[in-house]
């Protein structure tokens, strides 16, 4: 309680949240299991959203919460299909050059801290320049309580239009490159590349059947068959095995 007279108590909460963020970030770097990393990224976005709330950036926190908690985890998991689950540790001799680059960049960042304004400084550029102008003009011209929406949609409408076009082109790229049916029955690509197969009519139930046996069958073979054929074969094999037993 005595400490709270010296510093504002919410700043102590900020520091605690930032400490959790640093712990999570280091463990994301050190962790080897991709599942754990995906979950830790969810935790990271949770804690950083709480931190943004304490910095009064509620809209940013909302974006972080909406994207980081649900959608980002799902998409990362979907992307894990194309990656190896565990990576081999890199030898130390290969780590020296990246370490140097990171150290120099980090020192430059720390050098730049001296020019930053203090926390909550009235004379900082964010509090004196065009930001205050927007806050004053929003109450007069637009009559909307949330200044962020006014700035995004009205004062900075061109920028948001650009963002909408960026999202549109991202979706266009996904549609052109991947399509909406995935690789169901058409062709398969490997992370190592060079294995693309001729198109075969997609089968409707290929997505419904478990794929573990598919993996086992295709492990040794250099050229894979399309997955639908593979799956059917594996199912038959399994039934045969059961009959024999």
């Amino acid at each position: 309680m005595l400490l709270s007279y010296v510093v504002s108590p919410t700043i102590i909460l900020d520091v605690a949240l930032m400490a959790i963020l640093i712990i999570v970030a280091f463990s994301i770097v050190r962790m080897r299991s991709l599942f754990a990393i995906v979950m830790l990224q969810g935790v990271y976005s949770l804690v950083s959203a709480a931190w943004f709330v304490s910095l009064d950036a509620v809209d940013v926190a909302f974006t972080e919460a909406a994207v980081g908690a649900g959608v980002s985890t799902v998409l990362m998991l979907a992307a894990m299909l194309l990656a190896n689950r565990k990576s081999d540790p890199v030898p130390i001799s290969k780590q020296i050059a990246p370490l140097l680059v990171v150290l120099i960049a980090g020192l430059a960042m720390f050098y730049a801290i001296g020019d930053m304004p203090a926390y909550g400084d009235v004379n900082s550029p964010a509090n004196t320049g065009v930001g205050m102008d927007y806050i004053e003009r929003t109450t007069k011209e637009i009559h909307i309580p949330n200044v962020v929406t006014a700035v995004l949609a009205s004062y900075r409408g061109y920028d948001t239009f650009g963002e909408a076009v960026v999202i549109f082109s991202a979706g266009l790229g996904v549609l052109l490159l991947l399509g909406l049916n995935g690789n169901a029955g058409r062709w398969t690509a490997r992370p190592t590349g060079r294995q693309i197969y001729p198109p075969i009519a997609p089968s409707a139930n290929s997505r419904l059947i478990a794929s573990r046996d598919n993996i086992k069958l295709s492990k040794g073979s250099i050229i894979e068959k399309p997955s639908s054929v593979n799956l059917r074969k594996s199912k038959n094999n399994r039934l045969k095995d059961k009959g024999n037993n």
Partner: protein
Amino acid sequence: MHDPHVILKVISKFLVPFIALFAFYVQFHGDFGPGGGFQAGVILAAAVILYALIFGLDAAKKAFPPSWIRIGMSLGVLLYGGTGVLTWILGGDFLSYGVLAHDPTHGQHYGIIAVELGVLCSVTTVMIAIFYAFGSRQPEVNEDNW
């Protein structure tokens, strides 16, 4: 018939409309509280993703057909750009919403609502498109890697 997932199914069937409702709350309450088109779009996409996770991708494709994705993506950008062109036609600059109504502040309101609706359309459909594209892929890695 014993269904081991009956609890999950009932709860998520109950939860999906609430998530969609919350998305529309965020969309239309964005002028007063936190939120806006982008966040609402992501939440609305999350509702479809939850449905797809529980009931399968085919059921989700029946509920939200892939043809809507192509339409919605372009419709969102068209709505945004169309608002700008409309202000052009009405005699203002590109995306200056003041000319949309007699009172400039009302015009600003209408413009912001139209623009946010465009962003909502585009973001929702793109997120669902990404999920459909990745979610329908089958695994191609060795069992040892798991």
